[in-house]
């Protein structure tokens, strides 16, 4: 590698934040028209963001340097803000990029026409997500949360309509309150420790006198409540199903990763601040996380069983997977965390695909095809073969139907639905199964009441999801109806195919993926590695500083 390339590659951690920000600013300057150009720019920027995230992931998956700290303002730790790439944040960044790319591809078929500034909001949302995953500073975490949420308010209401606006009002009110709790929690932590750098706070916690411990724990609990509300933990999650089902499909698919941010923040901060060897405050709140997560998983499972609509089912499956992650954090075991992370990756991709599939399946149920989809430039054109048989009474002349080719649109929907169902329910051979096996085998070694409960619930929730999906599948694919086969466009089918391909890849590369995640979990449970890496970050000296300086303005 040449010197120039080396100098550039050290700035890589800031690219996932700067790239969407600059793209959004440029697109805003383009005005409200020129949607075609903006679509191309958005797609290119999202794909580039994913590529950078993958490079970051491969840079930390090697042996030695698996935590990289970057100083955007070139101020020394702990005074300046810091971006940290470790295995966990790199994995979350790659998930963000994948979900983002799938959503933006899908939106290009029709949905980006439904309102102005869709692409701008989309990029800002990505910026907030990447920033929240990469930052190593508490207040910066709040700022990125707000960027992410402010963009999500707009995206939720993309497309307009009473249902979206009403769900949006509730969603904004709840998130504003949660953000205030987050702020109060951060302020208390600052008051106790005198620092905002996550690693520095972790170091100072052992020096906190006993008289301040109550205040410290109160601050941490406030932070925890704010994150749990965003991670949709029961009983703080009643906002999620109405909001996610009201949102347009590409927005809902992107929101799948939003609940993961809360879980990520809990995992990051609790492993840093309250590890098992933290003395009096060791494993603070672990029981709440454990049983709260279990209650959430149970709530999600019951919701999945109770609902009749596929989009509500998808929303409850998001709740269930979020509950699994939080419950796993409470156990504080590397093996359990690793299994939960694998399950998290697979369920995120599957839930995203499910949200995208919902609309296509619904379109196949409805006779009236949405007007925009008819204008078929570059879309998949399928001969409406079944129309010839439309008048045939099925039960009367069954023979006329034998040998009829299934229209390929319906075949795609059927196969995609079956694959998504396999991942969501955790049946072999897809990635949901691998994740559940990794999680269950780790839980069997814990041997506590909570571990048995969680194991049983994981299996029961799989059963409930299977029942619910079979019910939906039978209604969509086996019920006779005289509708023409749905028309699908390439931009609508490709993202679903890509997401399912990623789920298959997670199985094919299951061994290295699990090894990577085990490394991530072990690093999380040895917080000194993270702390040392952040403290080891050195400012760039004068000569090189000129290159780093321009990126200092975005921080606060």
């Amino acid at each position, binding site marked *: 590698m040449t010197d120039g390339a080396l100098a550039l590659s050290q700035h890589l951690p800031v690219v996932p934040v700067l790239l969407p920000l600059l793209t959004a600013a440029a697109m805003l300057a383009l005005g409200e028209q020129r949607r075609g150009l903006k679509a191309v720019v958005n797609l290119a920027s999202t794909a580039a963001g994913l590529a950078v995230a993958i490079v970051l992931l491969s840079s930390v998956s090697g042996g030695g340097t698996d935590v990289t700290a970057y100083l955007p303002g070139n101020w020394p730790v702990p005074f300046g803000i810091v971006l940290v790439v470790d295995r966990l944040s790199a994995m979350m960044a790659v998930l963000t990029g994948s979900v983002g790319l799938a959503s933006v591809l899908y939106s290009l078929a029709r949905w980006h026409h439904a309102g102005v500034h869709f692409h701008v909001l989309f990029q800002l949302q990505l910026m907030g997500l990447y920033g929240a995953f990469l930052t190593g500073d508490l*207040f910066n975490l709040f*700022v990125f949360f*707000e960027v992410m*949420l*402010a963009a999500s*308010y707009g995206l939720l*209401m993309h497309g307009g*309509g*009473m249902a979206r*606006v*009403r769900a*949006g*009002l*509730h969603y*904004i*009110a709840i998130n*504003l*309150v949660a*953000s*205030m709790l987050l*702020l*109060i929690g*951060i*302020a*208390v932590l*600052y*008051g106790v420790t005198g620092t*905002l750098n996550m690693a520095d706070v972790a170091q100072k916690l052992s020096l906190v006198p006993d008289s301040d411990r109550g205040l410290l724990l109160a601050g941490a609990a406030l932070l925890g409540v704010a994150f749990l509300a965003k991670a949709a933990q029961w009983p703080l999650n009643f906002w999620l199903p109405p909001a996610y089902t009201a949102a347009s499909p590409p927005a809902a698919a992107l929101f799948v990763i939003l609940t993961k941010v809360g879980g990520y923040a809990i995992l990051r901060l609790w492993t840093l601040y309250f590890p098992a060897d933290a003395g009096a405050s060791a494993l603070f709140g672990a029981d709440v996380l454990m049983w709260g997560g279990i209650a959430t998983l149970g709530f999600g499972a019951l919701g999945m069983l109770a609902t009749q609509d596929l989009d509500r089912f998808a929303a409850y499956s998001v709740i269930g997977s979020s509950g699994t992650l939080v419950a796993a954090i409470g156990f504080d075991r590397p093996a359990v965390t690793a299994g939960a992370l694998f399950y998290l990756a697979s369920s995120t991709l599957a839930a995203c695909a499910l949200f995208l599939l919902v609309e296509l399946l619904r379109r196949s149920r409805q006779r009236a095809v949405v007007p925009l989809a008819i204008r078929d430039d570059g879309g998949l054109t399928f001969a409406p073969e079944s129309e010839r048989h439309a008048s045939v009474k099925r039960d009367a002349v069954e023979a006329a139907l034998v040998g009829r080719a299934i229209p390929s649109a319906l075949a795609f929907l059927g196969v995609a639905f079956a694959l998504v169902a396999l991942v969501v329910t955790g049946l072999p051979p897809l990635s949901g199964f691998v994740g559940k096996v990794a999680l269950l085998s780790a839980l069997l070694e814990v041997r506590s009441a909570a571990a048995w409960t969680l194991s049983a619930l994981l299996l029961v929730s799989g059963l409930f999801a299977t029942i619910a999906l079979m019910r939906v599948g039978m209604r969509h694919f086996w019920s006779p109806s005289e509708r023409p086969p749905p028309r699908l466009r390439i931009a609508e089918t490709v993202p679903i195919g890509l997401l399912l391909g990623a789920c298959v890849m997670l199985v094919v590369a299951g061994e290295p993926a699990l090894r990577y995640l085990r490394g991530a979990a072990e690093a999380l449970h040895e917080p000194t590695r993270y702390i040392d890496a952040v403290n080891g970050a050195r400012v760039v000296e004068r000569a090189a500083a000129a290159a780093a300086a321009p990126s200092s303005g975005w921080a*606060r």
Partner: protein
Amino acid sequence: MELVVSLAIGVMAGAGTWLLLRPRTYEVLIGLSLLSYATNLFIFSVGSLAIGMEPIVQAGRPTNLEHYSDPLPQSLALTAIVIGFATTALFLVVLLALRGLSGGDHVDGEDRP
């Protein structure tokens, strides 16, 4: 002064919480604003409550909070004010949109008996 500030925070947070649970969107908006005032004051008070103290370390004086006011909570409060103001304004827009769509000012868009 500690008593006055903490009373102010408590009263605003209490009133804000009560208003937040009301069924009218305007009351919710005012409740959110009061809560965010309380939050901002709280962040501000995490530093050191003092009058006429400069937020900078001066030469020849010991560097503890007896002799200067911590500038960081002040800048945090500033950022929180800006963000809180923007999101509250956004909430106001959504409030008006809901009002336009539903014709009422109930948070659910309709009055249920």
